[in-house]
C-alpha cells in the first residue's frame, strides 16, 4: 500500500467506523429476518424459511394467490405506485429545482430574503406540512378549494386527497412543493462553484444563453445535479409519511415503504416485512445503478 492509499484509508476511517457502527447491525438484521418467519410478537420463535418470504406460497413474488396478476396484488400495486410517484416527482423536482436555483443564482435586490423563503417548505417538519396540506386541500374547509372556486377555476370543490384519480398526483404536487428546495439548494451550490471565465468566453462568442445553459452550465453541474437526483430518487422510492398522512391509506396509493410498514409494524410480520424491505432495497439499488449508468457518471474517476 503506497502512502496515498494509506492517507485515503486514514481519512476514510471515521466514516467507515461510524457507518459500520450504525448500519451493519440494523441492515444485516433486516436481511437476515427476510429469510425467516419472524413475528414481532415472539422473536424467539423465529425459524429460518429460506426464500419462502420471497417466492413461497404467500411470498412477495410468484405468489399463487395473486389471481388477478402480480400488479393487482398489494405488493405489485405498491411497486407501481412508488415508481410512478418517484419518476414523476423526481423529474418535476429536478426541473423546478433547476429553475429556482437559476433564479437564486441571479443577482438582485432581496436575494437573501428569497433564498431563505424558498427553503421554508423543506424546513417545515414533514408531519406538519403534510397535515397542513391535507387541511388546505380539504374539500370543505380547505383554502385551496375555496380559492379555486372563488376564482371560478372549478365549479365544485374537489376532494383532492380522496378521489383516486387525483390522490397520487396531489401527493406528487405536495412532494414537489416540499422537496424542490432541497434540489434548488444543492444545484445553487453547484452553480456558485462554476468557473466564471468560460462564461465570459461564451458571452463574447455570442452564444445564446439557452445554449450556454445546455452546453456549459448543465454539463458542468451535472455531477452535483446527479447526486441531488440520486438522493431524491432514493428518498422518493422510500416515500411513506406524505402518502400516509395525506391520503386515504387504501391500496390505490400505498407505497412500498407503506407496504413494509404495514406488514412489519401493523401486522407484525417481521420476516415478511423484512423481505419486502430487502426487495425494496434491491429495487432502489437497481434504479440508482440505472440512474448512474444513464447519466454516465463515473464514480471511480477524477
Amino acid at each position, binding site marked *: 500500500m503506497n502512502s496515498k492509499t494509506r492517507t485515503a484509508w486514514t481519512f476514510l476511517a471515521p466514516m467507515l467506523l461510524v457507518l459500520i457502527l450504525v448500519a451493519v447491525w440494523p441492515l444485516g438484521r433486516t436481511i437476515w429476518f427476510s429469510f425467516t418467519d419472524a413475528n414481532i410478537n415472539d422473536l424467539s420463535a423465529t425459524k429460518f424459511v429460506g426464500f419462502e418470504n420471497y417466492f413461497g406460497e404467500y411470498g412477495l413474488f410468484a405468489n399463487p394467490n395473486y389471481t388477478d396478476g402480480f400488479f393487482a396484488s398489494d405488493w405489485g400495486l405498491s411497486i407501481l405506485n412508488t415508481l410512478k410517484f418517484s419518476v414523476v416527482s423526481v423529474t418535476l423536482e429536478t426541473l423546478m429545482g433547476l429553475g429556482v436555483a437559476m433564479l437564486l443564482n441571479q443577482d438582485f435586490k432581496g436575494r437573501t430574503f428569497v433564498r431563505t423563503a424558498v427553503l421554508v417548505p423543506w424546513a417545515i417538519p414533514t408531519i406538519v406540512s403534510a397535515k397542513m396540506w391535507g387541511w388546505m386541500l380539504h374539500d370543505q374547509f380547505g383554502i385551496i378549494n375555496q380559492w379555486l372556486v372563488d376564482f371560478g377555476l372549478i365549479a365544485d370543490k374537489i376532494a383532492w386527497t380522496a378521489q383516486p384519480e387525483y390522490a397520487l398526483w396531489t401527493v406528487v404536487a405536495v412532494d414537489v412543493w416540499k422537496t424542490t428546495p432541497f434540489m434548488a439548494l444543492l444545484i445553487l451550490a453547484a452553480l456558485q462553484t462554476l468557473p466564471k*471565465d*468560460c462564461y465570459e*468566453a461564451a*458571452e463574447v*462568442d*455570442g*452564444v445564446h444563453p439557452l445554449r450556454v445553459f445546455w452546453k*456549459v452550465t448543465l*454539463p458542468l453541474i451535472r455531477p452535483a445535479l446527479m447526486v441531488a437526483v440520486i438522493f431524491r430518487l432514493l428518498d422518493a422510492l422510500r416515500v411513506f409519511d406524505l402518502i400516509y398522512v395525506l391520503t386515504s391509506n387504501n391500496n390505490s396509493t400505498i407505497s412500498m415503504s407503506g407496504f413494509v410498514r404495514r406488514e412489519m409494524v401493523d401486522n407484525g410480520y417481521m420476516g415478511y416485512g423484512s423481505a419486502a424491505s430487502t426487495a425494496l432495497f434491491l429495487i432502489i439499488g437497481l434504479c440508482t445503478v440505472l440512474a448512474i449508468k444513464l447519466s454516465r457518471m463515473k464514480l471511480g474517476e477524477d
Partner: protein
Amino acid sequence: MSRIDFNNVCKRYAPNAPLTINNANLTIENGEFCVFVGPSGCGKSTLLRMVAGLEDISSGDVSIGGERVNDLPPARRGVAMVFQSYALYPHMTVRENMGFGLKVFGSNAAEIDKKVRAAADILQLTPLLDRLPKALSGGQRQRVAIGRAIVKEPRVFLFDEPLSNLDAALRVQTRLEIAKLHHDIGTASMIYVTHDQVEAMTLADKIVLLRAGEDVQKKGSIAQIGTPMDLYHRPNSLFVAEFIGSPKMNILPATFESASHGSAQIRVAGHRFDVAVNADQLKAGQAATMGLRPEHMRLADSDHSPNSLPARVVHIEKLGEASLLYLEITPDTPTITLKLEGTTGIRTGENIRLQVDAADLHLFDDQGEALTRTVSLPV
C-alpha cells in the same frame, strides 16, 4: 465597419479606488492591427475587456464601427477574444472548444469541422483534438484559446498575450499566421496585447503604450500612440524610451550646456556630447537626461573621438548572435548596457571606450519629456 473608438474612457474597479484607466482616447481604424503594450498591471486586459463588453465602462464611450457600444451585450459586438487566462470550457474537448463559438452562427457541421481542422493544423493541435483541456500542457491550452478565436470571422479580434507560453519557433509561426489571417480578412480590426517587443514591432500598424502606477492619475493612461518605428525612434518621453527596446535604453544624467542649429551640447559624467535635438527652450546649466540605446553604441576608434567616453566592463552576457556588455562609467552613474554583434573577445574587467553618433542620441528635459530630434529617421 470595424473602426474602434475610445472616447475619454475611464475605468475604476471600485468606487473609491484610483482610476485603472484614465482618459483613454484612441482610434483603431478599420483593418488596422493595433498592439497594446505597457507594464504589467497597466490596464491592457481591462481595455480589451471593455471592448469585448465584459467590463463596465466607468465613464467615456467605446464605439465599434461608429456605434456606441457601452451598453451593447458582448454577443452583439462581433468580437472574438483570446483570454489571457484562456477561459477554456473544461468539459469540452479541444475540438468542441474550438467549434463551440461557430455553431452559434448556425454554421453546418461540415463547415465547422473544416475550419476547426484548418486552425488545428496551423496551431499544431491536430493530434490533440479529442483531448480535454486538463490533459494539455500550458502552451497547448493557449493554442486552443487562439484556435477558438481564429475559427470565427469577427469584426474585431482581441488577443490578450496569446503567444506568451509558446516556444520561439511556434511563436514566430503563429504570429505569422495571425498576421496573415488579419490580412486575409482585411476589414477586421485587431487589438493585440503582448509583452514581446519583437511581436509588437513586427505585427503592429500602430502601437499604444500605456502607463502604469501613479502617473496614470496625473497624465492619463496613454503614454504614446504611433507606428513601431515612431516609438522606437521618437519616444515622446523617458518612460516610452525606456519601455521600448530590449535591452532597454541606457539613461545617463546630463547637464545642458548650449543649443545651436537643431543640435544640443550636453555634458555627461564630465564628457561632452553633441545631441541632434532641438533644445532651444532649455537653459544652460539645466539638468537633463541623455538616452542611448545599447545597440547604437560602438567601440570608439580612438581616445579622442567625439561623443565618446571610457568605461569598464563589469559583466558580459553572451546570447549567441550578440553579446551584452554591462559597463560602469563612474561609480555614481548607472550601469549601462552595450550590445555587440556576435560573440565578442572582450573580457570582464577590461577598460573600453564607447562612441555614439549625435544622431543616435536622445535627450529628455527634467520632466522626462523628449526634445524633438532633428535628424530624419527611417519610418
